[in-house]
């Protein structure tokens, strides 16, 4: 039976090793529905530990931009 996938929410946060997006999906099949969560991690281009705060901000912002681009490519933005 065919199913449909609906995006319920997209949660974003700076993870320890990369920027994370959690995509909540409502998958409907007939009169049933279930929830699934896909997780995408866009790695930082360098470890955040011991970096200057301004560099950390830049590293995180670059990872967030790449993450947004990936979400757009997946048709989620």
């Amino acid at each position, binding site marked *: 039976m065919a199913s449909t996938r609906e*995006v319920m929410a997209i*949660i974003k*946060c*700076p993870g*320890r090793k990369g920027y994370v997006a*959690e995509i909540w999906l409502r998958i409907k099949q007939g009169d049933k529905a279930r929830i699934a969560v896909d997780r995408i991690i866009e790695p930082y281009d360098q470890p955040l530990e011991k*970096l200057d705060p301004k560099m950390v901000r830049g590293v995180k912002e670059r990872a967030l931009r790449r993450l947004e681009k990936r979400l757009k490519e997946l048709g989620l*933005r």
Partner: protein
Amino acid sequence: MVTTVDLPDYTGYSEVENVYGDVKIYTPSGLWVVGSDIITARHVSGTLLPGGGEEDVIFQTDPSVPCRGRIRQVGLNLWHFGASGYADAMNDAVIRVYLDDDVGTDHPTMEMYVWDIDLLNGGEIQNRVDRELYDTTITVDSETWEVYYAKNVSHRGGVTLAYYDRSGLMFMGASCWIALDCEWLEKCRITLYNDNSNPSLVLYGHGGVLYGLYP
């Protein structure tokens, strides 16, 4: 464990008979009915490093996809790699929560210093710091810090561990958590704000958020 729950029409998905995953329902009798949160609860962690006067995002929903959910718990672990260059982990660290219309503004729906979280636990850590009732000490970069472990932690949260530099009169690290149980209807954002006036003094650590969405 996955169970099946019949949803009432308020979801807007009246054609859906069943949803796998439990929800927390406030019943007309005034009682909360709570099921498993295994599917509807998730945890994310944020790596944080705000300078003085800055805030760093721990968690945020994408505003392009409105959703309804709840924050169950927020945890924070702040520490110093060395003896200098850092803000106070108790008195400068502020958890800010923005819900719905407050997202994108400069006035958070709620904000709490780590010191406030300790106070919700009776102010145990601060009280013992005032009387030098530390548990042990550690030496970092030739400086000795007092270490405090909370003896009792409320089931709603508290500061569980703190490092105090008595010579510098500041907290060099703190671990805390709090059960917020607040709900958003469309969007949400949680940040760590550094309330130090010096932009070069940073807070460093990680934040975790336990949250869930309504099916």
